[in-house]
């Protein structure tokens, strides 16, 4: 009964690839932004903060449409990228990864920001009196102490990315083998007369992935607390 067909496998592997790439590429940006929001005061900070959270509250179809307008083949940025650098996002799996990265970004940034805010700044002062330059303080104290938060953010971002549907399907459509992720495959299957059992299998698989991500995230959060208490 639980026989996964090649088309389903394709969707599962594509989802994993899209979500993993989206998370790995977004993480450095997420850390930089989280640090900026946690540590710096600058003009426009609340606007930036709101912009980061925007994908969380906007209808996903709006985010997808905005991506299409800017990064589609005829979009301003998209046309320039295609012409000068040969990078095309529209209707490619890379576009799916981009859409997933944008949609999961708020969930990635938040735990990182919280863990940076929780770091005792006096430890960073101690580090500088021991001769550490600001980048060394960041690399040897801030980053390691924020690591559990970073991992938690990555797990949450990954879980969001793997389940993303609205923005992805709007931006890169639903092409089997190229942009058809688990979510869009389920969507197609439940519109097909005899697609129910296949849809059911994919639903189960996405529940398993999401549960796994949440449990992992919880575990990392617990590690964070232990780490900050030095045990």
């Amino acid at each position, binding site marked *: 009964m639980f026989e996964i067909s090649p088309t389903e496998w394709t969707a599962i592997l594509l989802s994993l690839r899209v979500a993993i790439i989206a998370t790995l590429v977004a993480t450095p940006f997420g850390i930089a932004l989280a640090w900026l929001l946690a540590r710096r005061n600058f003009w426009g900070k609340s606007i930036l903060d709101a912009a980061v959270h925007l994908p969380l509250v906007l209808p996903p179809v709006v985010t997808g449409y905005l991506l299409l307008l800017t990064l589609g083949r005829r979009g301003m940025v998209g046309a320039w990228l295609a012409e000068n650098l040969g990078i095309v996002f529209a209707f490619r799996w890379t576009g799916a990864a981009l859409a997933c990265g944008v949609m999961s970004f708020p969930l990635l940034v938040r735990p990182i920001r919280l863990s940076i805010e929780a770091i*005792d700044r*006096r*430890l960073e*002062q*101690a*580090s*500088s*009196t*021991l*001769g*550490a*330059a*600001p980048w*060394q*303080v960041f690399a*040897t*104290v801030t980053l*390691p*102490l924020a690591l559990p938060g970073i991992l938690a953010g990555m797990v949450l971002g990954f879980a969001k990315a793997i389940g993303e549907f609205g923005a992805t399907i709007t931006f890169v459509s639903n092409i089997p083998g190229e942009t058809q992720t688990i979510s869009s495959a389920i969507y197609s299957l439940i519109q097909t007369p005899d697609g129910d059992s296949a849809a059911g299998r994919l639903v189960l698989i996405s529940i398993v992935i999401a549960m796994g991500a949440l449990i992992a995230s919880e575990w990392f959060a617990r590690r964070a607390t232990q*780490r*900050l*208490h*030095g*045990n």
Partner: protein
Amino acid sequence: MLRVDVAKQLGEFSIEASFTSEGRVTGLFGASGAGKTSLINMIAGLLRPDRGVITLDGETLDNTATGAHVPPHRRRIGYVFQDARLFPHLDVRQNLDYGRRMNRLADDPAQRSRVIDLLDIGGLLDRRPGQLSGGERQRVALGRALLSKPRLLLMDEPLGSLDEGRKVEILPYLMRLRDEGIPMVYVSHDAAELRQLATQIVMLRNGRVTALGGVKVLTGAAPV
């Protein structure tokens, strides 16, 4: 030789302090809230004076007239905080080695084992800070500061968070440290402690220096 002549406004409170120290251990004495910690934070470079000059052995660390400010990590001034501030994600051995790594100093096993013996922390090397007692933590913090080979050692009430029994335990180590010859600025509100350790006293009250001189100036100092 350390020369400090600074002014700093901190909310309602202001510091205007000037002193020169040539003694091996300068005791900065005053009640809590007298501005002792702010003053040594300025020496460490963690706090910038509004106005004034700080020099160490002829090198200008701060001079607000010229805008000179050497950042803390280039001062080579060790700092032992009241709350130790060991890095919780590193074990004792890595904490001790931290300053050497950051300053890119060559490995010096002889000095390391001497400091470890001096402070009796050889048995703690594989532990995490969370598994140490208050007194042990403070000894490791002393070792960590020493091993960064500072030109000057700042100590902010290193016994302040310890109970009487622990103080008696640490004091001999501090006296050994004094005899190592690294100049120190030792902050305390405890006259008895300073009488045992300091060679020169700077008395601070409400952010102003009220007395300077040998440990004799502590005589008759109001108990705090």
